[in-house]
């Protein structure tokens, strides 16, 4: 090893990785260096497609199918992973290098208990006997702050919550006391209120066992809590690297600054007396499970109402009731003062046209086999009766509204970026010339810069067209940015409802306080400060 520094655990030099797409190999990591010391946590951030995950996997000497390591050096504690045999590398993985994936639910085998899976790697690598491993796993479950650490291992993955599963996954990675853990967006799929606890548990574990880690995320506030140093990637190239404090206070590169200043949208909250939509004491259930209890929400014409809450709070169900996908059991939905039929099939085409919906995952919201022209053109034809040239003309106008042009007409969804896809979905909703658009977590799958662009577009369209929005989200920053009014939901009930100023100023109801306190801030030490007070707030909720 060339380094004289004994503390270096991982050194990657001039790493180049190719990805296979469009019948040829394209370089996706273009010569990145990375050095990690023992016990150090490195944050790896960047937008999707920047090569974060690919680089993270390369730290294990691994290239996922469709990728190949073309050149560079990977030294892990004196071992050259580029030259080592696959067998030797497998011995390292799971024993000395561990990996925590984004979706714990997909990474666990549903047919085995948590305990069996936690100890599997250690026992197979011959590091411990099953009995020892089991005892040790219980300690780790306790360290990860899991409830009933002695018994929770006997449960199956579906019997614990998402946050618990993610913690169990970290415990599994810790089981062999690895020198390096690679966390790949481990909390992205979790609610803010759950995320805080998982972050704290992971941070404790890493410190307690003096493990080095690479923490991959696109959330800056999260990385500020976890990492000692931050490296910013873009288009497979390093933008800059510095310790967390420097990076937060004085980033050098323009690109990094733009990432930091993204949450700059602000809007004065306004209210209007003219209500476009009123939901009155709605009760709804899936089968016999009640999900909405006595929900009242009103939306002013031309304004934005945000519905916030964690998953399972009934946000999306409310949207399903409004659109008629889930007929309510009690209560009524008034649109422009007129009651809407509860069932979708009882609604007239005119009623359907006025309420449109935009989904979280633009990928699944667009038919992958239809071109942009068909996707946007269909509602134009369906609702306005325009055909042929007239319809094409309208599609062009719509594309211009969403800041794209007619060169996109013949593209398939697979050929668009995430932000472009979401814009096409917005255009599809606009094509119906609606009065109300329901946006269900429309920005949560997108990178920060792209998010900002989409939010600005939505606000601009509102000014121009006077359309009203219901904005369903769990992201408080988005709510602050764009809403006029806010509705906080918890366990199927409306906790609080009012103008943005009222909601975000104390005094808060207990749940709102917990929710607001859980949103990570870009400040070192926020996690330690918060985690102490959060317990009390949770207790106050009962």
């Amino acid at each position, binding site marked *: 090893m060339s380094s004289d520094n004994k503390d270096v655990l991982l050194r990657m030099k001039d790493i180049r990785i190719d990805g296979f797409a469009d019948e040829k190999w394209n370089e996706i990591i273009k010569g990145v260096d990375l050095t990690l010391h023992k016990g150090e946590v490195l944050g790896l951030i960047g937008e999707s497609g920047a090569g974060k995950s690919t680089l993270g996997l390369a730290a294990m000497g691994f290239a996922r199918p469709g990728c190949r390591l073309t050149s560079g050096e990977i030294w892990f504690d004196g071992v050259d992973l580029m030259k080592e045999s696959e067998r030797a590398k497998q011995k390292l993985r799971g024993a000395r290098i561990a990996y925590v994936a984004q979706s714990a639910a997909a990474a666990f085998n549903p047919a085995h208990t948590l305990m069996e899976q936690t100890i599997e790697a250690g026992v197979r690598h011959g590091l411990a006997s099953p009995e020892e491993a089991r005892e040790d796993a219980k300690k780790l479950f306790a360290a990860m702050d899991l409830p009933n650490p002695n018994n929770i291992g006997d449960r199956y993955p579906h019997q614990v919550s998402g946050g618990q599963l993610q913690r169990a996954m970290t415990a599994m990675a810790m089981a062999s006391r690895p020198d390096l853990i690679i966390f790949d967006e481990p909390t992205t799929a979790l609610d803010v209120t759950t995320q805080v606890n998982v972050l704290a548990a992971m941070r404790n574990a890493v410190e307690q066992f003096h493990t080095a880690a690479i923490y991959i995320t696109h959330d800056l506030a999260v990385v500020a809590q976890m990492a000692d140093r931050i490296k910013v990637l873009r288009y497979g190239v390093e933008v800059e690297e510095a310790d967390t404090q420097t990076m937060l206070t004085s980033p050098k590169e*323009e690109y990094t600054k733009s990432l930091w200043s993204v949450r700059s949208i602000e809007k004065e909250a306004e209210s209007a007396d003219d209500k476009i939509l009123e939901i009155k004491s709605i009760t709804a259930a899936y089968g016999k499970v009640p999900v909405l209890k006595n929900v009242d929400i009103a939306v002013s014409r031309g304004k934005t109402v945000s519905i916030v809450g964690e998953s399972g709070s009934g946000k999306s169900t409310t949207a399903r009731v409004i659109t008629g996908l889930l007929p309510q059991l009690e209560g009524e939905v008034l649109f422009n003062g007129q009651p809407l039929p509860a069932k979708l099939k009882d609604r007239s085409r005119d009623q*359907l046209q006025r309420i449109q919906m935009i989904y979280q995952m633009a990928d699944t919201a667009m038919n992958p086999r239809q071109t942009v022209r068909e996707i946007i053109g269909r509602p134009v034809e369906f609702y306005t009766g325009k055909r042929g040239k007239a319809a094409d003309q309208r599609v062009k106008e719509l594309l211009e509204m*969403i800041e794209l042009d007619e060169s996109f007409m013949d*593209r398939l969804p*697979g050929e668009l*970026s995430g*932000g472009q896809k979401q814009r096409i979905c917005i255009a599809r909703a606009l094509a119906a010339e609606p009065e109300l658009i329901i946006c269900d977590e429309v920005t949560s799958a997108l990178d920060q810069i792209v998010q900002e662009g989409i939010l600005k577009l939505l606000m601009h369209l509102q000014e121009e067209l006077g359309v009203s929005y219901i904005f369903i989200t769990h992201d408080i920053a988005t709510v602050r940015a764009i809403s006029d009014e806010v509705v906080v939901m918890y366990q199927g009930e409306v906790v609080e409802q009012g103008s943005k100023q009222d909601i975000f100023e104390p005094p808060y109801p207990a749940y709102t306080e917990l929710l607001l306190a859980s949103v990570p801030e870009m400040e070192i030490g926020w996690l330690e400060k918060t985690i102490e007070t959060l317990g009390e707030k949770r207790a106050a909720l009962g």
Partner: protein
Amino acid sequence: MSTSEGYSAKDEVGLVRTRRTWRQRAWIELKKAPFTAWLGMVVISIYIFIALFAPLIAPYGEAEITPIPYAPWDSTHIFGTDQIGRDIFSRLIFGARNTIGIALATTFLAFLIGGGLALVAAISRGWTDQILSRAIDVLMAIPSLIFALMLLSIFGSNVLSLIIIIAVLDSTRVFRLTRAVAMNVVVMEYVEAAKLRGEGIGWVMRREILPNIMPPLVAEFGLRFCFVFLTIAALSFLGVGIQPPTADWGSMVRENASLIQFAQFDLKAGITPLLPAAAIAILTIAVNFVVDWFLMKTSGLRDEQ
């Protein structure tokens, strides 16, 4: 990366892909196809060619009777003649036309019935789905060859009832597969979006679901074709399939089966009844080669090194 250019949605990097026409893409795929797939495609093309141009290729007519029955292989009759003096080589050629034609028609009909009902079941769910699925279960519970034999003896063995009966019996498998793959697509948000728009069931079936489930259906079409083809041959061998004088490989095996005992005197005579059997086997294998390749392409299963 030091300049901060204004953000523009147009410049966002998507998966930039070279635009290719359908033909270019097909050619790229074909060039990468394995040897077996090529072999299969060549064999199938030859069969199709023979079936289309049968009257031009065959030296004798389909039911033309020559004076000598059981004639040996010679220059006038390449593969000899059968029990009433019809030229076997010509009948093999016409057999391609009949057997493949009927099998194709049957498979298409099976897909129309099974696929159509499956899509209706997948989209409507609830009661419609329950009734259709259970009815299909009942049909599947009866061994299909015996069921077909029974129905054919009730309705008489003409080509039309043969096609309809086998199509209905085979549509059960098509129903199962189509319903399963369509179930994965109906839960997609674009299908929900189409329903919210107020689209009818016909549009949702044709435009939203069908294009997304085509690959497994095409593969299934190939396999189903093989099974239908074999079922027809088996029924013909049993005497309830395609009726004389129409040439058909299954009945040709039966008609000339007795020749096999002459193999000890004349090897060629012994081979004669095996020729139509071989024609069946080769086509079945060829179709399977192509389907295998297609399945591997569409299922995303690849051999990793």
